[in-house]
């Protein structure tokens, strides 16, 4: 047996082709693909759940909705004005679709012309709204509109949606500070309703108004007055398409009666004096 000579050609390592153990694919390509997949899944989940909340949250009993502390909202001191507001509400309730609901109405001392409905059947009317109203009918329309929000369970739907988005953001960002449920009343009154909700509430409200007063005269007072105002107002952020809503109020069977015999009901004395106070304040 002969030993291999040192001069013999030494063994060499083979050149193994690249891209077997590590693919040469650009990492950004994979990253973007993954990001789109995750975002797509999240958006799909959000849409699915928001549709789900829309149909399921109305089954949550109204009585179970949290009661709200009113410390955040400075209530109007004028008790007689509060009382006349309640009188209008009580006039409307038997003519509404759901007379069994326990509404709570509050006159808030605020110059901002706005009204809102929130959880637990609470309706807030800002006293600043009065300066945009000419008659009881106009005010009744606003109240009926907020009543409709409560009837149609819009506050709980909006809350569910807010909670849902918060949940999804928490899932994505890993931030565990959920404030929706613990939030003060200030948060709950900021629940925003979408255009569909506003339109539906208008539809219900106009029926209630018709059933109560026999006509719809004065219904558009508030919107008409507001549409002359500066568009930068907060009101337009939460109540879009004022012009369209006025148009709707006057359309079809809801035409303003030209018959002057169907007189509008004037505002009660207390509300009228409050309205004048507000107008003096702003001038």
């Amino acid at each position, binding site marked *: 047996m002969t030993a291999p000579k040192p001069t013999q050609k030494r063994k060499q*390592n083979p050149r193994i082709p690249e891209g077997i153990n590590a693919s040469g694919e650009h990492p950004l390509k994979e*990253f973007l693909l*993954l990001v789109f997949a995750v975002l797509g899944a999240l958006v799909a989940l959000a849409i699915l759940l928001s549709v789900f909340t829309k149909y399921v949250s109305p089954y949550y009993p109204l009585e179970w909705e949290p009661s709200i502390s009113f410390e955040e909202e400075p209530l109007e001191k004028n008790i007689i004005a509060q009382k006349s507001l309640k009188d209008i509400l009580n006039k409307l309730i038997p003519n509404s679709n759901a007379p069994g609901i326990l509404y709570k109405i509050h006159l808030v001392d605020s110059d901002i012309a706005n009204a809102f409905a929130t959880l637990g059947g609470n309706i807030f009317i800002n006293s600043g709204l009065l300066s945009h109203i000419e008659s009881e009918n106009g005010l009744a329309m606003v109240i009926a509109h907020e009543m409709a929000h409560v009837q149609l369970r819009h506050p709980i739907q909006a809350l569910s949606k807010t909670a849902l988005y918060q949940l999804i953001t928490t899932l994505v960002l890993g931030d565990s500070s959920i404030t929706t449920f613990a939030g003060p009343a200030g948060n709950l009154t900021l629940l925003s309703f979408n255009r569909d909700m506003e339109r539906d509430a208008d539809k219900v409200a106009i029926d209630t108004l018709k059933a109560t007063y026999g006509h719809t005269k004065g219904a558009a007072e508030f919107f008409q007055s507001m549409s002359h105002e500066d568009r930068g107002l907060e009101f337009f952020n939460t109540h879009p398409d004022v012009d369209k809503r006025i148009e709707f109020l006057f359309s079809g069977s809801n035409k303003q009666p030209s018959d002057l015999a169907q007189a509008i009901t004037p505002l009660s004395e207390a509300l009228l004096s409050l309205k004048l106070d507000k107008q003096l304040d702003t001038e």
Partner: protein
Amino acid sequence: MAILIQLGIFLCLLLLGYVFGRRAEKKHYQRIFEGEEKYRNIFLSSERLPSGDYVFHHGQLVCGSVVIAVDYFKVIVAGLKSIFGGHLTTYESLLDRARRESILRMQEQASKLGADAIINIKFETSRISGTEKKATGSIEVLAYGTAMMDKR
């Protein structure tokens, strides 16, 4: 606002991880290719016993060790990927580099000893940090074998 700051920090880290990680990877592969060409004559084998070619050789332990850290970009991509499953390609290239680098270091040692082959090559991989949550992991890859030197 806090969310925006968090998001900003996240995107910064992601960008830094991507830019520097990508640059380091390219440069490293360049060095690996050069090294593999340089030590092509130090034959590598996983054979446990020397073959007939090495009857006049004697053996000595050689080893090469590499510690690598993963960059933020790779962590995020791997994290996203783990939702869907599949190859963690960003980690694959990292480990591929580590294994090849450890072999090169072993070959460098063997070449200093005047060896013409390394047999009985084995790998060891161990995680050396990043056991706690959210920490960036780093691992050691150790390659060792028997360098064959001609006695004549």
